[in-house]
């Protein structure tokens, strides 16, 4: 049976993992390769590395990070942040990434999804969507570098709206419509982050998750809001997520990947047991 995936997400700045990773038993908790090995041993099903500064200088550093990590870890590796063009995708894949995650660049230029998936295969193209429940009072800065076509416009009453630039700029694009569009364009998977829930550790946005997951035929990774193991269970059972991504609950050692897997297995959710 296909198992639900548990994916730790690591934020990388200047070649170092940041965001207060606190493992006592690691020699160097900021070293991406070291952490990747740690999570691999713990039973992580995949790893996501997110370049949080995403400047062009940092991208060169990120290529090195990917190269180092993929030398030592033989599980799927996704890289996101600052991937703007086909040549960026190619560099990351050649360095050893298995998938790249597109976000802002895909919104500015949706053809990028089609070109990248036709060239490298859908299996390696993830589209990350940063979503917020829409209301007329949102005052965030508009993303000036895009015009939203009619078919993608957010539904003013019921919709969630897509953000760009790491959640700074609002676009006017509807999350569900965009999810369907990226699937049509050839994306192999959607990484869906609820900005309303992210960082609060009070659970994923299950309504959003379920809506998106049931609107597309490609897998959806839930992100943003995990604080307890029950949240992971809810994302899978209620939100219909195919995979759950979490950062702080794993990084701070609140729970291990093994804890999460045992918890889910005890609730009859198919997971890959450790050491199999």
């Amino acid at each position, binding site marked *: *049976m*296909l*198992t*639900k*995936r548990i994916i730790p997400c690591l934020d990388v700045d200047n070649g170092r993992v940041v965001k207060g990773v606190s493992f006592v038993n690691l020699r160097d908790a900021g070293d991406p390769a070291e952490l990747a090995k740690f999570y*691999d041993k713990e039973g992580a*099903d995949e790893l996501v590395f997110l370049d949080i500064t995403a400047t062009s200088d940092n991208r060169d550093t990120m290529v090195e990070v990917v190269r180092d990590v*993929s*030398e030592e870890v*033989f*599980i*799927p590796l996704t890289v996101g942040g600052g991937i703007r063009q086909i040549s960026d995708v190619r560099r990351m*894949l*050649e*360095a*050893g*990434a*298995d998938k790249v995650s597109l976000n802002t660049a895909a919104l500015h230029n949706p053809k990028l999804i089609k070109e990248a998936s*036709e060239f*490298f*295969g*859908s*299996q*390696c193209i993830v589209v990350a969507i940063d979503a917020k429940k829409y209301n007329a009072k949102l005052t965030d800065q508009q993303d000036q570098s895009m015009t939203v076509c009619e078919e993608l416009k957010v539904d003013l009453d019921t919709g969630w709206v897509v953000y760009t630039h790491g959640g700074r700029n609002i676009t006017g694009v509807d999350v569900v419509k965009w999810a369907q569009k990226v699937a049509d364009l050839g994306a*192999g*998977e959607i990484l869906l982050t609820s900005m309303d829930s992210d960082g609060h550790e009070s659970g994923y946005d299950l309504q959003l998750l379920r809506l998106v997951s049931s609107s597309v*035929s*490609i*897998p959806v990774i839930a992100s943003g809001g995990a604080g307890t193991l029950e949240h992971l269970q809810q994302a899978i059972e209620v939100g219909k997520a*195919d*995979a759950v991504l979490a950062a702080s609950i794993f990084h701070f050692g609140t729970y291990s990947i093994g804890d999460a897997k045992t918890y889910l297995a005890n609730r009859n959710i198919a997971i*890959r*047991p450790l050491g*199999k």
Partner: protein
Amino acid sequence: MNDLGTAKPKIAVIDYQAGNIRSVEKALTQSGADAVVSSVPGVIESCDGVVFPGQGACDSSMLNLRSHSLDHLILRLISNEKPFLGVCLGLQLLLQHSEEGDEDCLGLIEGTVKRFPQGHKIPHMGWNEVNIRSDHPVLSGVPNNSYFYFVHSYYADPTDKNVIAGTTTYGIEFCSAVAFDNVVAVQFHPEKSGDVGLKIYENFVQFTKMSRGVLS
């Protein structure tokens, strides 16, 4: 020639612009082989064994193989008993035809490549169990129902069920591995499946070493 037992076998990784071959190269190196990534027939032929990886679309991959004259080479290497490991698309292309495209595939194995029926998310992406039903040396020591990493929308459906070495269930039960003689090909990615995946590469390296002793 007294170095048969110790020298690293040279294993070619066929490079035809189809997906992430770097992890295949690394898995081979980690497993004790001298990995040679190449699209040059002469170079590939000079190696002791061959890995045929691949991700992406069937038609463009077949066209790439033909443009490098690799299609005939692959069939010749297999009939010359060169140890051969196909991965993902490298399994599918061994069949005669794929529902994904119009181009003929290599036709080593009778049968077609089919799309998963509707009802489940496509691609089939993630870790799934492989029910192993073969005692081929490349699969030895791999516990039955081990989990491997998959990502694909089509699956191989060989006519001769005797070549099937492993099956996996995703809505339907499908062929996730074939094995016969010098050929093993798997739908999953052993280079992305942690220790149990590396075991397959280690076995393949050993198998290549043994075959080199016999063939030379």
